[in-house]
């Protein structure tokens, strides 16, 4: 078991290294940081631009392999380099991960908890009206891309705010810096409402579908009947025996979704004006910021692998059969 895990870890680290290197080469050869200094009034002297780019390891006149070596030697020691504006990427990344986490933690928790509950409920009420309503709405919601959903939410929020005459729902940014103390806390919560809904709705639909299928599989099995036969109430049999076993796939997806969403909440972050990792992904490409792009890809690759590992651990925790073997 230990040898297997170690082998997997080594191959995973190798995959991350190769993925990040490929992303760096792609970014370094495709993007053009020089464009950020061009067309300024008064024009910046080329030697000045060269010197600045050189300082940040962005100069396209240096061979790309040389820049790569500089970048890698920085990354190995934990320094991800500087943005084209000269800011430390480590600091920026730390701040942005915080922003993304705040958004995601609530979004994924609400999404998975509600989704699993709804799915389990639909399974217990199979073929009744409530099951059908849940099934159809999940199907429709899953066909709506998140950027359409988020834009619709802002439209609704604006409509509500207009009819009420004051701002009930906030739809841009993380908080209002003018406020302080308790007011700012509630203001932050208000800013969270719409992005959380836009993140959670799709997940609710997704989790409810897999949870319903799993629950139906489990409900027909012998151990649930045994649990009922030994005198457990229907409620206890459902919660203690059926739900726990049927949670395994949802838990696997949960770990995976959390990892990939750290950079995958791009649309939600961009549309609602949150400056997290997802938004950085788009912004850094638009500003030709090679080092930032490389940092985001490295982070995304690490996230995917950590998420895969995490889902293994969760499955082991929930499924006794995996632990024994």
């Amino acid at each position, binding site marked *: 078991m230990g040898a297997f895990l170690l082998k997997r870890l080594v191959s995973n680290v190798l995959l*991350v290294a190769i*993925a990040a290197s*490929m*992303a760096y080469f792609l970014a370094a050869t*495709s993007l053009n940081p020089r464009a950020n200094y061009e067309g300024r009034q008064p024009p910046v002297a080329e030697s000045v631009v060269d010197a600045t780019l050189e300082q940040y390891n962005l100069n396209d006149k240096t061979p790309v392999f040389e820049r790569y070596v500089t970048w890698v030697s920085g990354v190995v020691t934990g320094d991800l380099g500087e943005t084209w504006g000269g800011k430390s990427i480590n600091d920026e990344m730390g701040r942005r991960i915080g922003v993304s986490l705040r958004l995601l933690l609530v979004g994924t928790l609400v999404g998975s908890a509600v989704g699993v509950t709804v799915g389990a409920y639909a399974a217990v009420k199979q073929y009744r009206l409530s099951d059908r309503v849940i099934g159809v709405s999940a199907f429709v919601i899953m066909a*709506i891309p998140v950027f359409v959903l988020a834009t619709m939410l802002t*439209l609704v929020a604006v409509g509500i705010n207009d009819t009420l005459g004051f701002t009930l729902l906030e739809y841009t940014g993380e908080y209002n810096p003018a406020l302080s103390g308790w007011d700012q806390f509630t203001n932050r919560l208000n800013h969270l409402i719409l992005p959380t809904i836009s993140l959670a709705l799709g997940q609710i639909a997704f989790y409810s579908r897999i949870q319903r299928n799993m629950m139906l599989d489990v409900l027909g099995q012998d151990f649930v009947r045994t649990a009922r036969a030994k005198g457990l109430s229907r409620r206890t049999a459902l919660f203690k025996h059926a739900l726990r076993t049927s949670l395994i796939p949802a838990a696997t997806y949960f770990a995976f979704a959390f990892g990939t969403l750290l950079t995958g909440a*791009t*649309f939600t972050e961009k549309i609602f004006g949150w400056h997290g990792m997802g938004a950085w*992904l788009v912004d850094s490409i638009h500003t030709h910021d090679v080092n930032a792009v490389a940092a985001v890809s490295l982070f995304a690759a690490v996230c995917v692998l950590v998420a895969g590992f995490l889902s293994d651990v969760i499955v082991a925790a929930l499924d006794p059969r995996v632990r024994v073997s």
Partner: protein
Amino acid sequence: MRSKVTLARLARNPQARYGLIALVLLLALAYVGPFFGPYDWTDKDFTSFLSPPSADHWWGTTQIGQDVYAVTLRGMQKSIVIGFLVALFSTGLAALVGAFAGYFGGWVDKALMWVTDLLLVLPSFLIIAIISPRLKGASWLWFVVLLGAFSWMITSRVVRSMTLSLREREFVLAARYMGIPGWKIILRHVVPNLSSLLIIDATINVSAAIIGEAALSFFGFGVQPPDVSLGTLIAAGSDKVTGYPWLFLFPAGLLVLLVLSVNLIGDGLRDALDPGSNK
């Protein structure tokens, strides 16, 4: 005949029926609709900018006087074409890679699966976004290739594991003992036996590709102007959604309907092709 049974099941499946009807209607709207509209998608009406839907401009106009009806249908055509091409490309690639890896085994299998893993780890959105500045001015077909290249990995793993069991079946062994080369066995005997999986996968890939195209175009990484797609239209419309909702609602609504109808067909196909279901 198996295909006849499948078709009969498909026709009896209400989901698939509604999905198919909706898709045919949407296709008709995209390709026949423009002939009925009073304006061409390249026309600009300089007497009305950002005007709401009216008898003259059915779905309103944009800020440069384009007819939203004509432009949206034009974008829808592009989205549909991209969706189908990407699905064809990625499912074909998945079938070939998975079947070759599973059939030949050994180092071929190791190498192909390693590439698959690598592509799964690479954030595809980011890679396409980085490459896209290079594609400015190039054909949009490159975009199809890019989208397809990043959406085949999971299916190819499934195909591989199914090929592993197919490889030992009598008809494949018989073909091998007759001296037929491996690539021919894969194309003639292995891939056709996976057709139900591949058909379902291709259908799901259509809707995934339509959403993927729209998502990339939303940030300007996809279809480039002057070409339009549902994604570029939604992106342009979402900036002005609070004041001029028709710019956003029509393309977004059509996108959702398109994806929904394709998904319905995919779900119906799954029921019809799955021998375990008796519906």
